[in-house]
């Protein structure tokens, strides 16, 4: 492949081909969405079970005067699941980068977006604990912003819908209390991460 006397049309054709040959790797994004989808769904279910146990009569007697422990159990549950998620993510990203030959601007943008989102989750948790408000309202809102933006950038409808559903679940979470809030978070994650994740996995590049 080498020709020096190109016509302008041929030049445009080369540029066009090189740019349009770039394909979005949906599979890589799918793996990450499925990982966090499953991790956070399990964390929500486990959170629901912990709250159910703590609301039993036996727990009432045992926990008398120690209700501050309830918040720690819930926080501990999420921290454990998130740590497991980050460990798996570390190995997953290593494997993805091993097979990767092109690092697109979109990949870089999405990577930065989700790191900032992860930092926002931590900050939101601190704010919620300090202000004594239920974390799901802010968490689902932040997840909605990142998911909708990712969907818009990679032009993938199920992810955009998933992101919008996060917004709806965020509003809905203000109407739900107690252990059922954990189930609502689980439902939001299934709709916002897991289902779009499987659509991404099935999508053609």
């Amino acid at each position, binding site marked *: *492949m*080498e*020709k*020096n*006397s*190109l016509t*302008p*049309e*041929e*030049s*445009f054709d*080369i*540029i066009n*081909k*090189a*740019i349009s*040959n*770039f394909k979005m790797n949906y599979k890589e994004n799918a793996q990450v969405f499925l990982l966090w989808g499953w991790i956070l769904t399990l964390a929500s279910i486990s959170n629901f079970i912990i709250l159910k146990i703590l609301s039993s009569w036996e727990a009432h007697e045992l926990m008398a005067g120690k209700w501050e422990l309830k918040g720690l159990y819930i926080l501990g549950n999420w921290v454990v699941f998130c740590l497991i998620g980050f460990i798996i993510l570390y190995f997953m990203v290593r494997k993805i980068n*091993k097979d*990767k*030959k*092109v*690092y*697109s*601007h979109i*990949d*870089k943008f999405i990577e930065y977006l989700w790191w900032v989102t992860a930092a926002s989750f931590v900050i939101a948790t601190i704010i919620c604990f300090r202000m004594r408000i239920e974390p799901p309202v802010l968490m689902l809102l932040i997840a909605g912003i990142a998911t909708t933006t990712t969907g818009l950038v990679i032009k993938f409808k199920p992810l955009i819908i998933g992101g919008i559903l996060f917004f709806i679940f965020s509003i809905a979470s203000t109407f739900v209390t107690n252990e059922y809030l954990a189930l609502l978070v689980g439902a939001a994650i299934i709709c916002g991460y897991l289902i779009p994740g499987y659509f991404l996995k099935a999508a053609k590049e």
Partner: protein
Amino acid sequence: MYTDLDPLLHSQLRLAIISMLVASDKVEFTHIQSETKAAAGNISIQIKNLEDAGYIKVEKTFKNNYPNTILSITDQGIKAFESYVSNLKKYINPRK
């Protein structure tokens, strides 16, 4: 002929390489090879020319214990590409 066009970019292989780099943040040598179907030696020469002109940055790393070359476009390369495309438009649409 086509005197306004940057001679460094007005070549099939170099233009293909620079276009791929404009579209991506970083591209591996092997990807360029598989997309252009050109010989590795020829690609290396063209990459060297582009690098010497300051249009691209070449990073030599290791991947799975094998040498790996990663390319990215520089700001100068982006400017050169943009001016090449705008000059190209004049030839296709001389009135504009």
